[in-house]
């Protein structure tokens, strides 16, 4: 079972998929601010790369998983990462 996935469409028109939950505290990155191919967590100031999932600054210390995205005939296909998800304290995959 995978944790929720957030799918992003940038202003440049590229599509990306990350684990939706910030690694610092339970918050949905889908509600975050997308700019320069990064998403800023809506709660605190960590931003995550839309391509690799790496984090730039605290309070989050660990990146999120990035998933492979293919757009075919207008459909977004996501191939899940096989890495273990990195979830914040107290959040478990249902």
């Amino acid at each position: 079972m995978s944790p929720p996935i957030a799918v992003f469409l940038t202003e440049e028109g590229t599509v990306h998929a990350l684990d939706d939950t910030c690694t610092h505290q339970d918050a949905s990155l889908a509600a975050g601010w997308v700019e320069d191919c990064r998403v800023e967590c809506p709660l605190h100031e960590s931003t995550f790369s839309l391509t690799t999932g790496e984090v730039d600054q605290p309070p989050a210390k660990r990146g999120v998983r990035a998933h492979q995205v293919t757009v075919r005939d207008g459909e977004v296909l996501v191939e899940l990462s096989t890495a273990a998800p990195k979830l914040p304290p107290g959040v478990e995959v249902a």
Partner: protein
Amino acid sequence: MIIDQLDTPLTGTSLKPTPAGVAYTDPEIFIREQAEIFEKMWNAVLRADSLASPGQWRTVTVGREEIIVVRTRKAGIKAYLNVCRHRGMRVCTTAEGRSKTLQCGYHAWTYALEGELVAAPNLTSMPDVDRGEHGLKTVHVREWLGYIWLCVSPAAGSSAPPSFEETVMTEVSTRFGEVQSLENYGIEKLRVGQTRRYEVAANWKLIIENFMECYHCATIHPELTEVIPEFAQGWASQAQDEIHGASFGAQVEGFTVDGSAGVAALPAIAEAQDRKYYAITVRPQVFINTVPDHVIFHRMYPVSAAKTIVECDWLFLPEVVEKQLDVSRSVELFHRVNLQDFEACEQTQPSMSSKAYDDGGALVPSEHHIAEFHQWWAQQIGPFARGR
């Protein structure tokens, strides 16, 4: 001729009464004014171009409410009560800023610039919380004359605010008249050359009453009366039903502190508006003064029965502001008028609680139009116990 009006036989007595002194001092009356007048009517709060880019916000106070006014990314200018829907902390804790979201500093409830709740710690595990329902409470917004106007009550969404067209625009055009249209001044296209903020230790009604009459002009406004000699007769621009353009003196070149020339005239004013000063009151808290080359726009914010903040903008053509032309003599004239007026109001306020003013004071014929303001005021707040 203005002087003719003084010769016209007056019906009734020369003196009309003012409200009793208690109207200017009583905290309960003041609360009723906040609730029934300032929170129910449209208030001009900010120049729209003071929020230039998305995410820029300022906090303002209308009645008893603090309000966030923000330029959004997608929905123009929006305004919200500055109260977190979670536990009530102020969401914005400074006078202005720029941010991607509006986030409460207590538990990080986070609102989009468009108002809805977008994030909160553990919100994902509370799927029953409707993010729109728990968004910031919105306040009605209109843009007119380049200003942002707010109406606090009723809450946006629950029912309609008073019609802006009927309560603000019609009142202004009725007062300004068809020919001497306010539109000619193009106020929405002007830029702020200077803003001054005055903390006045007086009731807001004393400030309105003062602004509405010119019986005091020859006594306390020497510079203004030099520029507009007819003010010595005591009749204000707004003393009659239709506004009267008060003429500059023959030797006066412009509406400046020394009567020297101002800057280039606003391009669309009518011939009849040249070399004239006009003033109107837009209830409950705006005064607009127009002269050929600039517009002076006052906004009042009552703080208590005995304290009012007044912000005054001097608006000029954009090129005047961009080229940084010297407008200091233009600004100085009405800045002095403001200081002279506010000092008179501050010297009047303490007497409002004197026995001598238990039954109020008097309005002379050139002030009789102020009685209409008093009637309007009394209608808004309803009956109150007179006396002390």
